[in-house]
């Protein structure tokens, strides 16, 4: 089970890398959010995947699953949610002001201070 998820997260990170290297701003943003999915899946795997166990710390329970990675992922998901929302707004504003969503054209804007 661990092997499958870790390979899956590898695939996600690889495709995210491909998307981030493209020139379209929207693709980069999608790539960044896929990257965070891959990373979250990896954190989940690091806590070892066990099914059917309760997340309690008690002397009588000998087999329990680790609740901490899930708590971490929950926090990380919320953060990446906010980041995706913000970067989409930034994309919109970028498109309106600079008139392009191609990163090639996004260099050499003169200083207009």
């Amino acid at each position, binding site marked *: 089970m661990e092997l499958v998820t870790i390979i899956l997260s590898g695939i996600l990170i690889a495709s995210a890398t491909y998307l981030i290297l493209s020139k379209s701003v929207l693709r980069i943003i999608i790539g*960044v959010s896929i990257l965070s999915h891959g990373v979250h899946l990896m954190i989940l*795997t690091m806590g070892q995947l066990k099914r059917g166990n309760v997340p309690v710390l008690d002397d009588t329970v000998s087999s329990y699953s680790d609740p901490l990675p899930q708590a971490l992922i929950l926090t990380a998901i919320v953060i990446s949610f906010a980041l995706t929302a913000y970067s989409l707004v930034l994309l919109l*504003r970028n498109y309106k002001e600079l008139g392009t969503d191609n990163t090639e054209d996004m260099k050499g804007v*003169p200083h207009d201070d």
Partner: protein
Amino acid sequence: MTTNILPMLPIILPFIAGVIMLFIGKRPIPHRMVSAVTGLMMVGIAAFNIYYVYKNGAMVTFISNWSAPFGISVVYDMVAALLVFTTSLVMFFVVIYSFQSIGYERERYYYYPMVMFMITGINGAFTTGDIFNMFVFFEVFLLASYVLITLGSRKIQLQEGFKYLVVNIVSSNFFLVGLAYLYSVTGSLNMADIHIKLSNYDGSLAIMTLVAVVFIFVFATKAGLFPLYFWMPGSYSAPPMPVIALFGALLTKVGVYAIARTFSLFFTSDTAYTHQVLLLLALLTIVAGCIGALAYTDMKKVIIYNIMIAIGVIIVGFSMMDYAGTIGGMYYLIHDMIIKAALFLLIGFIIYRTGKNDAADLGGLIKQHPVVGWTFFIAGLSLAGVPPFPGFFGKLYIVESAFNNGHTFSAIIVLLSSLIVLYSIMKVFIKVFWGEPSEPIELKDIKSDKLLFSAIGLVIVSTVFGLSADFLFPAFEMAAEAFYNPSSYSNYLMGVE
């Protein structure tokens, strides 16, 4: 162990101030008042905390009284105390500076709340004792910084802001990857607990080296170490001057602090490899920064490349991880936060007054602004580390430590970099203040009393810091102990068990 409120105040206060300002609405004058009062209160509290920590040792607060390795703990040791004090001080002066420079529209659209939220995140990252919590605070100040870098929506800001956003999101994701590896090895997130677990660690060194490399990648991107500084010169020159001052003085230093903290606590088993990599990167950063500082005449760019040199010097100190190296690193870290903010505010005044970014277009300003000119001169000397200014003490200890550890070459590079810093900053000084301009400069009529108050105030603070370096030495010694003797940091866990 009781739940002490004092270490929480530097995190809570700016947060509450930010929320209050959101409720006030788009009214700049109350925003100004709230943020300036908060700044003053934070400086007072942080100063008291330094005294308190000096008398009683590190303050530890367990949030919601969850005992240490399980809940989140806030560890306010001397390192955190000094850094939080400097952050508050820089924030206060930059907020005052913003009154007359940031522009009415930005003030209306929640500039001050964003500054406050950024300070919340920075102070949190300095004081937290939990590595995942540090990630969360990193995200808090990064989100605020994304807003600050694009606030105002000028074209250059949008363009550079997007690059800054993508670079930082990617490196934050790698922070999570590093955390996941570390958690799978140690099964803990509390930094002190991880240190105790790793000091009895007999597993594979390869995985710890991997974690070290991921952490170097992440924090080097935040701090602007070679070769991951590529985003810094562009992004830091885009936003308005007070924002650059905050970024240049504080954000990169959080990365440096995170490197120092994680490398002293976690990666103690294979220092021959990890700390050598760090040293090499630091030296390359110094060289790259020197090349940049010599190449540009644009005043902002010169100072931005000087940030890189300073970061390289600090990391050289911390990569030695001995008594002298860490004391030097701490001195230089605090010194650099103050003096970089001061220099940015000074050249900000020149840019606002003349409307020109490039030092080559300017000249002869000493006639109109003798005080600013000589203050800039003092700030330049302080930056280069001429005694009695504080940069000297930091460099003295760092160079001493490098010689003691047999890194003669590193010590020579650090010494040579001081000369280049001095040359690059004096070049700006001579071009701007002496001689005659190539074409007559039209000075803009701006209100500048608060600009000058902040800029000259910070230079005075820096000079006082230099003159009182001897008096402050016990505090810095105490701060450095957390790095070269990490068990002094982690022994608060002993009382809990």
